[in-house]
C-alpha cells in the first residue's frame, strides 16, 4: 500500500462567495464556500483549495472569515491561495485555520519569499502555483524547456522557464507544486502530459496537476505522467454530484490507490 492519489476540488472565492457557478442538486446556496466545502468533503475530496480572487483588498477579510468557518467544520486539509505575498499573509491564513498557502505572482517577483516562508513555517505549508504555457522558440519567445511561467491568470508572460522555475522553487524549500497548464485550462481535452512529465523529472516534491480535465478518464494519464494529486474546478462544480467518486473510480481502475 502507498499514499493515495489526492483528488482536490478548487473553489474560486470572491468577497466571501464562490464565483464560478456550481450546480449541486439540493444545495440551496451554491455560492456559500463553507456549504460547498462540506459538500465536497462528504463527496470524498481529499483536500480543498480556496483561490481568493477578490479584487478589492477591502473585501479580503471576508476570505479569512470563510477560511475560519471552513476549518472549524471540515476536517480535511485546506489550502488557500490568492494574494499571498509573504510571511505575514501566511501567518494570518494559518491562524484562521488554513493548513497550507499557495503562492504565485509574489514568488515570481521575489523568489526569496519562498525561503522566508518555508524557514518560518516549514516546507509543508507552502504550495508553489505555476501557471505555465507552451511557447514557440521560432516566434522568438522561447524558453529552454518550451514552457513559460505566466502571471495574471496566464495573460502575462514572464520569459521565465517553467521547469527551471519549478526546480528553483523546490530547491528554495517549497513543499509542493501546483502545475496549471494555461493552454489546456478550460479545453476539457485532458491534461498537458508533456508538461507534467517535464516538471516531474525536475523535482522530487509532490506535484499537483491542473488544467484540461473534462472526463474521469483524463486523470489516470496525468498520474502516469508523474502527478501525485489532481486538482479541478468546473468539472466538479458543473458535473454530477458523484463526480469525485467517478474520478476516483477511474484512478483506481487504472491501478493507482485512492482513499
Amino acid at each position, binding site marked *: 500500500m502507498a499514499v493515495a*492519489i489526492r483528488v482536490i476540488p478548487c473553489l474560486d472565492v470572491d468577497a466571501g462567495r464562490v464565483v464560478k457557478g456550481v450546480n449541486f442538486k439540493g444545495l440551496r446556496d451554491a455560492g456559500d464556500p463553507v456549504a460547498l466545502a462540506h459538500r465536497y468533503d462528504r463527496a470524498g475530496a*481529499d483536500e480543498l483549495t480556496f483561490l481568493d480572487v477578490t479584487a478589492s483588498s477591502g473585501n479580503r477579510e471576508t476570505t479569512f472569515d470563510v477560511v475560519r468557518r471552513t476549518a*472549524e467544520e471540515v*476536517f480535511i486539509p485546506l489550502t488557500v491561495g490568492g494574494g499571498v505575498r509573504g510571511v505575514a499573509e501566511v501567518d494570518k491564513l494559518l491562524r484562521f485555520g488554513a*493548513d497550507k498557502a499557495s503562492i504565485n505572482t509574489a514568488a515570481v517577483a521575489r523568489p526569496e519569499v519562498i525561503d522566508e516562508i518555508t524557514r518560518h513555517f516549514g*516546507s*509543508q505549508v507552502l504550495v508553489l502555483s505555476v501557471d505555465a504555457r507552451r511557447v514557440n522558440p521560432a516566434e522568438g519567445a522561447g524558453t529552454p524547456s518550451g514552457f513559460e511561467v505566466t502571471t495574471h491568470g496566464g495573460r502575462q508572460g514572464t520569459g521565465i522557464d517553467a521547469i527551471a522555475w519549478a526546480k528553483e522553487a523546490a530547491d528554495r524549500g517549497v513543499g509542493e507544486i501546483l502545475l496549471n497548464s494555461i493552454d489546456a485550462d478550460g479545453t476539457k481535452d485532458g491534461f498537458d502530459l508533456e508538461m507534467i512529465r517535464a516538471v516531474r523529472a525536475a523535482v522530487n516534491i509532490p506535484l499537483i496537476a491542473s488544467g484540461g480535465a473534462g472526463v474521469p478518464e483524463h486523470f489516470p494519464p496525468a498520474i502516469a505522467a508523474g502527478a501525485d494529486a489532481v486538482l479541478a474546478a468546473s468539472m466538479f462544480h458543473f458535473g454530477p454530484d458523484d463526480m469525485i467518486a467517478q474520478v476516483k473510480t477511474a484512478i483506481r481502475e487504472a491501478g493507482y490507490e485512492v482513499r
Partner: protein
Amino acid sequence: MSQDEKNSPTQSLNEGAVRDAHSGKRIQSPEGKPTVTVLDYGSGNVRSAVRALEAAGAEVTLSAKAEDVLNADGLLVPGVGAFATVMKELKDVDAIRLIGRRVAGGRPVLAICVGLQVLFEKGVEHGVEAEGIGEWPGTVELLPAQVVPHMGWNTVTAPKGSLLFEGVENERFYFVHSYGVQHWDFDVTQPHMAPPKVTWSEHGAPFIAAVENGPLCATQFHPEKSGEAGARLLRNWVGSLRKAGAAKGATA
C-alpha cells in the same frame, strides 16, 4: 477564564497533577465531559485540533499555563515545523518538564506529527542533529522515498488491541512530513508493564505512524485533518480519558 486565576500560590502535587483552590473552575466541564488542554506554544494551526477535539466530546482549553497543562484529563501536543524549532518552543513554555510530570503521574498525553517526533531521542534534519525529549529510543530521519514530503492519505498497520485505532484499523489517515522514525528499538519493559503498541505506515520505507505507551500516545499523521477516520480516533482517545477519570474516582 479570568487573569487573576493564574499563578495561584496554593499548589500541591497529586498523581502528577497540580491541585489548587481554583483548579476546579478551570479544568472541569459543566456537562461532565473529559477536559483536554491543547498546548499553545506557537505551533501552526491549532484551531482545527481544538474543534476536532470538541467534536470528539471534550471540553477544550487552549493554553500553555502549567496548571492547565497539568490538570486537564488529557493533554494534546500539536507540532508543525522543524524538529529543533519545536523542541525550542516546547522548552520556552517549560512543556518538556510538564509532559514528563503528566506521564510520570499516568495522565494521558497525545502528541501529533512533530509532537510524536520530539518524543524520540533525536532528530536529524539537513544534517543537523537535535536532541529530543527521549521518552522513546530512536532517531527521526529523512524518509528514503522518491517524493518527499510524504503528503496525503496513507494506510496504517495497527497492532491487535490498539485503543486509538479501534474501528478505524483499515482507514487512511492524512500525513504531512519528510522525516520519520524507521526503527523501533524499545526493549526495556518492566514485568508489570504492558509493552508499547506501535502502528506502522510506509513511504519509501516502513516508519512509525503511532505509538501507544500507557498514558503517552502519539501519531505521525494528523487526526484532526483525517476526516471521519481521524474523528473516530480522537473519540477513542477522548473516551479513554473518561474511563481513566472514572477508574481514578473509583479507587480514590
